[in-house]
């Protein structure tokens, strides 16, 4: 399963290259693409951003990559499983990470199955709505392999066999970084692609992370 964490909502500079990418996605048949929500205008109206039809039709599924950052401190602690209404026809109801996790544990249909229309199901992936992300560690704990490695050495593909492969950018220029619970003053943000890795791992966990009861919280604070 390949989670291609790249928003393909605009055509590239070359239509031929777009067609080649779509053809490759169709050929491998296991690529999941992301969709997201942007807030536009003064009112901050939510608008869904989905892949172009060319790519969405070639992908195995499309999932949303919505996350919840704390309004109090900006730290990311939860991934959204059920998206809010965005008034966008065809906006995926299944989470990008949940589709990947379900594919690995053999329950692909539970997380949305093929295409984006099916809603996520509650169950072992925790309560519907949101799920705490079980971060393995600070930024860099999931070390990304450079894509160049696979272009230069075909044998390197064996490193990916049987695994969920999350492809994206870890470049600061992509402005896709989040504060995690491990971030401290001035700490480097975690790239979106590594956040997605932590999300998939959290959804694969046999014992999903849950908040403790109010009594324990009171006692601890």
């Amino acid at each position, binding site marked *: 399963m390949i989670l291609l964490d790249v928003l393909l909502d605009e055509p590239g500079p070359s239509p031929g290259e777009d067609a080649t990418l779509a053809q490759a996605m169709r050929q491998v048949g296991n690529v999941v693409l992301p969709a997201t929500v942007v807030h536009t205008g003064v009112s901050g109206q939510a608008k869904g951003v989905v892949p172009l039809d060319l790519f969405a039709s070639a992908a195995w599924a499309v999932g949303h990559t919505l996350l919840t950052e704390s309004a109090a401190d900006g730290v990311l602690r939860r991934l959204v499983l059920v998206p809010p209404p965005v008034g966008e026809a065809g906006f995926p109801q299944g989470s990008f990470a949940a589709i990947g996790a379900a594919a690995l544990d053999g329950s692909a249909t539970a997380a949305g199955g093929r295409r984006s229309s099916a809603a996520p199901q509650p169950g072992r992936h925790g309560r519907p709505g949101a799920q705490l992300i079980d971060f393995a560690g600070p930024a860099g704990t999931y070390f990304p392999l450079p894509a160049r490695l696979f272009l230069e050495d075909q044998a390197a593909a064996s490193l990916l066999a049987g695994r969920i492969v999350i492809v994206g950018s870890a470049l600061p220029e992509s402005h896709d970084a989040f504060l995690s619970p491990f971030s401290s003053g001035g700490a480097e943000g975690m790239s979106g692609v590594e956040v997605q890795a932590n999300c998939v791992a959290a959804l694969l966990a046999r014992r999903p992370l849950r*908040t403790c009861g109010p009594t324990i919280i009171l006692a601890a604070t």
Partner: protein
Amino acid sequence: MLGADSWSRRQHQVRLSGMRSAILAAAVAAIASILGLAGTLDFPDAKLLDLCFRLRGVQRPSPAIALVASPLTPPAFLTVSDGTRCPERS
């Protein structure tokens, strides 16, 4: 790839470091509480969660997941959230 021994050592060191951070955080929380600042945080469960993460330390990443990051920046990476496009890098 770390060997099992070096991984254990590293994890042990990280755990010790996490313990120190946790004790420090608890001390700060206690002082904040005495000074009446704790109420301004307004999210004790989140702070407790962060504390638990630091106490637990770094875990071994899931072997079921591989990350591939592209140095070949495609145009999509240059699209920012409001739909405008950043200038392409030279």
